[in-house]
């Protein structure tokens, strides 16, 4: 069963706010020069910010459900431009249910490219 795809916009301001709230002040999420110096294509979103948005989609699909597990690989960086923002699409598919547990396979893309590897959530719904 497919779930309704959610779209989010990520801006540089979002990354500043997320750094503050999460405590992750890695300058690769703020400072173009530092990001380029370590071989990144530019300022990139915190992987955990992308994952938090994926988790928001899961929360929208299963309101009030307890998340039992959540995980992914960060396979491609989400480059966030200075002006405007970048779009992130979170799609989901129910892969199975066992007892009260539902497994959701996610597909998280930006600019048509998958950015998370095997993102998956198990919820108790």
């Amino acid at each position, binding site marked *: 069963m497919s779930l309704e795809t959610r779209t989010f916009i990520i801006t540089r301001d979002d990354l500043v706010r997320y750094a503050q*709230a999460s405590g992750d002040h890695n300058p690769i999420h703020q400072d173009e020069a530092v990001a380029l110096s370590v071989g990144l294509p530019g300022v990139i979103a915190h992987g955990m910010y992308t994952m938090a*948005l994926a988790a928001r989609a899961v929360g929208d699909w299963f309101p009030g459900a307890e998340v039992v597990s959540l995980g992914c690989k960060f396979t491609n960086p989400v480059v966030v431009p200075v002006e405007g923002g970048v779009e992130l699409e979170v799609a989901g598919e129910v892969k199975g249910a066992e007892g009260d547990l539902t497994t959701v396979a996610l597909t998280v893309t930006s600019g048509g490219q998958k950015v998370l590897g095997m993102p998956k959530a198990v919820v108790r719904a």
Partner: protein
Amino acid sequence: MPVDQSLVGRVFPPTPRLEVTEDRVREFVAATGGEYAGGPAPATFPIVLAFDAMNAFLEAEAIELHRIVHGAQDFSYERPVLPGDVLSATLTVASLRQIGGNDIIGTTSEIADATGAVVCRTSATLVHRGADA
């Protein structure tokens, strides 16, 4: 400089306790674009503790944060995090390998409440980009 192989298996001291207040959860929810209406913290909230533990580990090993890129993160929860919880994370270095001038560091963190009961276990893969990368 590659990360020291003898680190594998090392358990770092628990992080200072974090009191999970409604304000703290509200800030986290707002930063991820949502609106907090009370109740459990978002599923990725325990990263606040895991990140604190990771920072202490990186500092202890003189690893520069800006050379770290996140490779993977997995959470498994015993129960949701709730306002009023007082939590601490204990990090263990689970694995370490070198690929193409980068260190691939595997860590696990156990996040426990004030009674010592585990609330969440989380594993992270950190890619430490070498100076030549």
